[in-house]
């Protein structure tokens, strides 16, 4: 169980301005749950994910996984960033083996493991390619394989498919669901697409505009595999949109 308790975070700019990014965030996630974060941009979603990843310290509050406090980055949590984050000097295969190298897994063994994960995202043919030879969607697939190669309990994803075209995006969502269903990880996924949230998530957390607070949590009670075009899915999308719409209006006012 992942538990987020009383998280507050303020950024201080160099001019001395303060930005209250997150205000009193509380959330509990069950193991193997798929949760999507959605909210107006600048509301602190990335900040919260970075705090969970251990890349950022909250001003107050605590994150625990199975009762254990998070103090910094760790291999129990994998992360896929919004921007492309593959190491450009490493081949696809060696990007995936990176964390295994850090754990001192022998070369033959780690390449074996990496190849299996590369197959999982359908890129076996590109093992020896360099990142600059891949399309955006392929890069994010490799980033996913790299993040799950250690079998982390929690996978954190920050708008990973934001920059890929709609068709590729649908395929990537399907592949992600396959991985999630196979390995049953706790998955935290930031998106700005209502459609994506309804297709993927068990629960969708809607954030208010700055300072980020949790506004509403929707439980998506749709059977899997899901049908994007079903009437129920549409209903969820509409209620999510209206909840979000109020927030986006707040930002513009």
């Amino acid at each position, binding site marked *: 169980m992942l538990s987020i308790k009383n998280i507050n975070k303020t950024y201080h700019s160099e001019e001395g301005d303060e930005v209250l990014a997150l205000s009193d965030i509380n959330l509990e996630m069950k193991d193997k749950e798929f949760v999507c974060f959605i909210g107006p941009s600048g509301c602190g979603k990335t900040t919260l994910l970075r705090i969970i*990843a*251990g*890349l950022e310290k909250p001003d107050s509050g605590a994150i625990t996984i199975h009762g254990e406090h998070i103090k*910094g*980055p*760790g*291999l129990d*949590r*994998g*992360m896929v*960033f919004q*921007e*492309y*984050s*593959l*190491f*450009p*000097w*490493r*081949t696809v295969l060696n990007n995936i083996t*990176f*964390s295994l190298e*850090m*754990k001192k897994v022998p070369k033959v063994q780690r390449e074996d493991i990496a190849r299996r994960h590369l197959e999982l995202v359908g890129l076996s043919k590109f093992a020896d390619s*360099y*990142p*600059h030879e891949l399309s955006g969607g392929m890069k994010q697939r490799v980033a996913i394989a*790299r*993040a799950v190669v*250690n079998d982390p309990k929690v996978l954190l994803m920050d708008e990973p498919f934001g920059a890929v075209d709609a068709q590729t995006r649908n395929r990537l969502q399907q592949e992600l669901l396959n991985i999630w269903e196979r390995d049953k990880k706790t998955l935290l996924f930031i998106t700005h697409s209502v459609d994506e949230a309804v297709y993927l998530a068990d629960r969708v957390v809607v954030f208010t505009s700055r300072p980020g607070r949790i506004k509403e949590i929707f439980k998506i009670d749709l059977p899997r595999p899901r049908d994007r075009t079903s009437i129920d899915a549409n209903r969820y999308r509409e209620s999510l949109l209206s909840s979000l719409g109020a927030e986006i209006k707040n930002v513009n006012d």
Partner: protein
Amino acid sequence: MDIGQGLRKRTIELTSIATAIVIWEIAARIIDIKYILPSFTSVASAFIGLVQEGELYRDILTSLNYFVIGIGLAILVGIPIGTLMGWFKSIDRAVDPIIEMIRPIPPLAWITFAILWFGLNKYAAGFVIFIGAVFPIIINTYTGFKNTPRVLVESGNVLGCVRNIDIIYRIALPSALPSIATGIRVGMGVGWMCVVAAELFGVSTYGLGWKIWHWNDLHHMDMVLTYMFVLGMIALMIDRLFRHLVQEWWLKWQSGVVV
């Protein structure tokens, strides 16, 4: 590719060079004072003579020897200093003022001390070349480290790479390599210029730079020009070779290399 076809593609370039040579030759004949402007033909025959005697090779090897000592030392010293300054803010603040004080001193101003410290030998020449080459290497290494993309460092962090030494070696250093390569290339350019000056002081009776002065004293200006051209050609070859190594082997992972 067939050579004839390659030459045909370069018609404009070849015509340009040929024209320059013809103008040079005509000008030399009009002026008709060998000391002021030796003709192309006399330079060409001087060059052929030098190649046949084998003296040129010895000069080239001598100069390259100084060059390798200077550049090798500059790489060995420059990359670690640039790395530490680029990664640790306090080291940057401590070392930067010292570097900024020494850097503006022209390398040739060091010659007296170089001879005093090392004696009249190849190490003195190497030291002057080192001074010329080390600052571009430090500065470009520094810049490369400073510009390590944050997302790559953080990707490393979440993948279990958290100790400074690991982050430097596995993430910042490879990320800085293109910039370091640029630094070495610039440093080699400056270092080669220092070769000529360093040799003036007679650390040896061979060497491309030394021979320029030697033949100048004897008023053999065709020889002087020959050595000037050889200096330029070697510089070009070093640069081409380095770029080739970088592109084909060192930084193969880059899309368009811009060193």
